[in-house]
């Protein structure tokens, strides 16, 4: 019994080492969102120039269909990386992809979509200080939210969407929500 007590520090060291090793593999940028299972924040975002009637994004636009709200900006480098995939996923018709042009000059945001392609059904502009983005708990761009048919946020993805993220994570969630 007394001998076992001497092993205690070794055991504590072992447990802490395991926790630290786990900590090394975690990405501190991916903060769990507190908005999961909460309704989409109230918003009525202004239209992006040159998009006519299918522009602007309001809370009610996110009801009725499963949608993916994508935070982007013409200044956002990683957005260029995920953009071709969004164009591809738009073709599948599985989900309504909407954009929020965050902290951006609307003219630049529109020009960026002309250059890289436009996967969005609706686009809203959220100029600095990015009130809608703060309401969504956005920490950087790109970020994407999956919203169910009732307008409840169900998932948040931080960083660019890759084919792997899409097939392994986002698509199963979208399919599941679409059944309901």
């Amino acid at each position, binding site marked *: 019994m007394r001998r076992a007590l001497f092993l205690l520090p070794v055991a504590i060291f072992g447990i802490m080492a395991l926790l630290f090793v786990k900590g090394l593999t975690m990405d501190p940028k991916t903060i769990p969102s507190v908005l999961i299972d909460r309704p989409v924040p109230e918003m009525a975002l202004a239209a992006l120039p040159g998009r006519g009637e299918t522009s602007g994004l309001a809370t009610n636009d996110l009801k009725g269909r499963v949608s993916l709200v994508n935070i982007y900006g013409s200044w956002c480098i990683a957005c260029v990386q995920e953009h071709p995939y969004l164009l591809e996923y738009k073709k599948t018709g599985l989900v309504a992809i909407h954009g929020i042009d965050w902290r951006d000059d609307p003219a630049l945001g529109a020009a960026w979509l002309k250059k890289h392609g436009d996967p969005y059904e609706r686009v809203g502009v959220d100029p600095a200080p990015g009130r809608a983005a*703060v309401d969504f708990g956005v920490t*950087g761009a790109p970020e994407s939210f999956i919203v169910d048919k009732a307008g409840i946020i169900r998932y948040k993805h931080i960083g660019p969407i890759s084919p792997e993220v899409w097939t392994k994570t986002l698509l199963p969630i979208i399919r599941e929500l679409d059944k309901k």
Partner: protein
Amino acid sequence: MIFPMDACGRDARAPKRGAPGARASRPLTPPMRRVLSAVLIVLAFASPALAVNPSEMLKDPAQEHRARELGKDLRCLVCQNQSIDDSDADLAKDLRVIVRERISAGDSDDQVKTFVVDRYGDYVLLKPPFKGTTLVLWVGPFVLFAAGLWVVFGFYRRRATGSQPPPAPLSAEEQRRLDKLLKEKSP
């Protein structure tokens, strides 16, 4: 992962005050003295560079003071070990502006914090709240300290009272063997 909003590579500390002391044995030449006084004058006016932009500030000094104090407790989510008061990241600036908007709208400090926590979670607070999920964090060190004290006191008490308990009295058989041994003549 690339986050273009990263703007953390900033050191807001002012240079330390005080110039190298002039040695009395070797008088300074006039040009050196001029350079030195220029440096001293610059240092005298140096103050820490602030991330808070004058255009963001509230007109009411009391409200601005509250905003500054609140900003020190809120984590910048881009530069995660800086407060929004310290950080130059765009998101920190946005949050500073929004905190000030809430204050102007008449929110109390707690209401402002709740507003931000509702959107970003407890993580945004640089000082984590005391609740079920953070119990280990807050109480753990004290528990470990108490356990350490217990071990140390136990160790010293055992040393003070002597480590061995008094031996049991000899049985009749043992006494007989002892007597026999004592009677034997040494060789």
